[in-house]
């Protein structure tokens, strides 16, 4: 991240912030979409985060830490949107028609559905750790720093989340085995 842009934006330069926001917005939507599992909520969270970053930017002491700081605001916005989702929204998701034909090493669309269900059962706290670690490839120490939690808590959340996802996949495997046996 260009710290000069960050410094200019800190001093109220809207054009500099527009460039910054353009650089990070796609990544923000992708991360929020993976945490919240809903594109509309992800876009709302990203919008809230980008506006919050603009408002609080003068309070960022070290411009070199912009990345970690901005992700912290994004995750907070995801928490807020996640709370709204639990209160109001029905938990529906439309699967694109060509999703099952996509070439990846995941095995089948059944795996995806099982993972989706298992992931939705996790709290936003756990989802955030999984996404930041396994999608953004951040080391857990950095994830902990970014979320403002102890490193041990980050490890514990990742362990719990992965155990839940593994259980979801194993449940799927058991179902398939029983169907074959019949």
């Amino acid at each position, binding site marked *: 991240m260009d710290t000069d842009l960050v410094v200019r934006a800190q001093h109220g330069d809207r054009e500099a912030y*527009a460039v910054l926001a353009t650089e990070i917005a796609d990544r923000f939507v992708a991360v929020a979409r993976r945490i919240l599992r809903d594109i509309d909520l992800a876009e709302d969270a990203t919008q809230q985060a980008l506006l919050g970053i603009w408002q*609080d930017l003068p*309070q960022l002491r070290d411009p070199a830490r912009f990345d970690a700081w901005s992700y912290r605001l994004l995750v907070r916005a995801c928490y807020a949107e996640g709370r709204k989702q639990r209160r109001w929204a029905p938990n529906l998701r439309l699967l694109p028609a060509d999703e099952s034909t996509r070439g990846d090493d995941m095995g089948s669309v059944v795996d995806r559905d099982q993972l989706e269900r298992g992931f939705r059962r996790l709290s936003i706290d756990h989802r955030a750790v999984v996404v930041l670690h396994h999608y953004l490839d951040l080391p857990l120490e950095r994830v902990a720093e970014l979320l403002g939690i102890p490193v041990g808590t980050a490890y514990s959340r990742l362990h719990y989340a992965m155990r839940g996802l593994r259980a979801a996949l*194993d449940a799927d495997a058991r179902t398939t085995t029983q169907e074959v046996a019949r």
Partner: protein
Amino acid sequence: MSTDRDTTRIVRSWLRTDEHESADRVLDAVLDQLDTTPQRRVTWWPVRRFPEMNTTVKLALAAAAVVVAALLGIRFLVPGSQNVGGPAETPTPSRDAGRFSATDGSGARHLLLGRGNSVPSAIRLHRSGRVDESE
């Protein structure tokens, strides 16, 4: 049964599945709002917030604020309420044989005699009959 390594590989692959995510709509909305959204500047005054304040504490603080406001209102707005316990006695000046005298709250009288080399400038006569002289 899947191993931990399998699960990690499958989850990573699932998370990296391409989705058509474009932030164009979000960016347009944010950039539109920038002009009307002021930045929060750092102030010298330390701003403290207690986002997780207990409801009971909130109610207690609100009640305390109401009580303090009511007391201040009675103290300053209701006439005659500032001298609770009766009016304080104020010194009353009077003329005594051409010299200025005053009575203070204790009932003692002050005779102001003026300055001189050997004459005291003030004499205080107590009700008990004791006399204090001062330069």
